[in-house]
């Protein structure tokens, strides 16, 4: 399976996840979106050595993954996109920061190792949170929420239109790549002699496509307004749940809950 087909599969997967039915899915995106942002900001604001304090934050996404019936494993599979740069940066921390921060038995653990682990955890947690948001809302509800949050209509419309054609264009690109490789079985990618014409053809056709879409819009009376299905508005209960959760995040940020839990038993 080539890279594009792979991406298309992942795309459809997200759509299917968003179509499921669960309390997490029913929770309005208008609350979910800011909540996700607060969660990620909280996670990012942990000090680089505060590994134990950060660790407790894993419970939130995990809980909602389970509640929403969304597979954690599929989410972690996406890490391959996020981790390279984080790894590249973090892996050098143990080299540069060698102050001993922790001693377990006879093993000294330096600040660099701790900050590297903190960095990785931040990467994983924030990925889990945004994955959860998309997997439980889908692009439609997210865009509706964006509109309610006063993101300009042009941008939201453009996002939805692009989303609609990403699959169409990707399918076309996938067919073209397959056709190319059927005639060039030993090449790994597109050879330089075809660089221009390959993507150029795709580009020219997409311009024709755009013309026709524009006509289709005009033919149906378009004059500047898109009517999307909004989502059911957030109730007071939803907002209260959101505020409660946000408060919990902040609580975990201010007090090292992990250590508190541990000290109960020491």
């Amino acid at each position: 399976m080539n890279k594009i087909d792979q991406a298309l599969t992942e795309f459809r997967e997200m759509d299917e996840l968003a179509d499921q039915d669960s309390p997490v899915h029913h929770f309005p995106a208008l609350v979910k979106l800011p909540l996700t942002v607060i969660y990620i900001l909280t996670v990012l604001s942990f000090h680089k050595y505060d590994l134990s304090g950060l660790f407790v934050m894993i419970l939130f996404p995990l809980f909602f993954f389970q509640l929403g019936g969304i597979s954690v494993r599929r989410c972690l599979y996406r890490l391959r996109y996020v981790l390279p740069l984080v790894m590249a940066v973090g892996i050098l921390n143990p080299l540069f920061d060698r102050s001993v921060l922790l001693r377990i038995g006879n093993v000294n653990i330096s600040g660099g190792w701790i900050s590297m682990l903190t960095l990785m955890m931040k990467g994983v947690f924030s990925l889990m949170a945004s994955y959860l948001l998309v997997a439980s809302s889908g692009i439609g509800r997210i865009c509706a929420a964006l509109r309610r949050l006063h993101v300009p209509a042009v941008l939201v419309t453009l996002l939805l239109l692009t989303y609609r054609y990403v699959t169409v264009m990707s399918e076309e690109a996938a067919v073209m790549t397959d056709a190319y490789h059927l005639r060039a079985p030993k090449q790994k990618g597109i050879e330089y002699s075809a660089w221009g014409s390959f993507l150029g053809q795709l580009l020219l056709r997409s311009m024709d496509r755009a013309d026709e879409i524009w006509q289709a819009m005009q033919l149906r009376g378009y004059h500047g307004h898109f009517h999307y299905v909004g989502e059911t508005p957030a109730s007071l209960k939803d907002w209260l749940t959101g505020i409660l959760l946000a408060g919990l995040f902040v609580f975990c940020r201010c007090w090292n809950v992990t250590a508190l839990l541990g000290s109960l038993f020491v």
Partner: protein
Amino acid sequence: MHMADALLSPAVAATMYVASGSAAAYSISKLKKDDEQSKLPVMAVSAAMVFAGQMINYTIPGTGSSGHLCGGMLLSALLGPYAGFLSMITVLTIQCLFFADGGLMALGANIWNMAFYGCFVGYFLIWKPIMGSSLFGAKDDHNAERLRIILASILGCVVTLQLGAFSVVLETTLSGIAELPFSAFAGLMLPIHLAIGLVEGLITAAVLTFVYEARPELLQCVGAAAKTGSKMSLKQTITVLAVITCLVGGGLSLYASSNPDGLEWALFGNADGGYAQNMGLNEEEFGISSQAAETASAIQETTSFLPDYAFKDNDSAAGTTVSGLLGSAIVAAAAVLICMAGGFFRKKKTA
């Protein structure tokens, strides 16, 4: 080059959101004056095409590796800077939401690093002046126009990618996340992205010349319609670019000389700290004087430690450590429990 959430502090992430948001708001207001409505489909389809195009592998002759497409330059050459910028935003947003490519918080930074430079700097400082000039020959000379497109594409991709890579380094350093020193990080990122930019530039050039041959009217600032010319002449542009380069380069070298904790230092510098042994490098063989190393280590000692975190073997610290470890174990157990409970609920539901 997608920036990740984990590499940003909330303050830097927010700042980048504000910066990118302002650029977006400006673009939208500019487009409104234009015929924004009729441009929507083109913008959407072009964005979708760039998205698809970025997943295609282009083999680089002579190497086993592959290159990818640089969206910003291509989109602004096709749609102009404002529409191109908005299209790039949607590409990056979809990549962020659906492929976890870059994170939700890093989106602002990513838009700035990849879309802003690609569209605004690439268009106003490179594409427009070069296409408006009479470099390589007259305006109506077919071959000269081709050469101008090739030059603008390559230069545009290289410059905008360098700026983007530099911003990644700057944002990471300002966030105080990585221990990797600024100059070392920059020293790693910039050369890599020089190579990437070159390849992306070649791919972009190939595509744009193809479009030029087939449907020149699709390109911005090309052909008779664009005779009005640009406000900034080529000479002025080169001056601006030179000044920017000097500023950035000068700043970099100043920083590097005053604070020699660069890659060299990392590799050979601090013998006492065991770096040389650690990296398996012999200081003598590489001929680095230990004088520099000593000053470097002195600087390192005074600057890099956070005193409150310097670990001392006292009881209270040990106490928190023990409770921290135990607490982590409890959290881990809770995590496992949650996962099991989820599985249990689902089974019950399907049963």
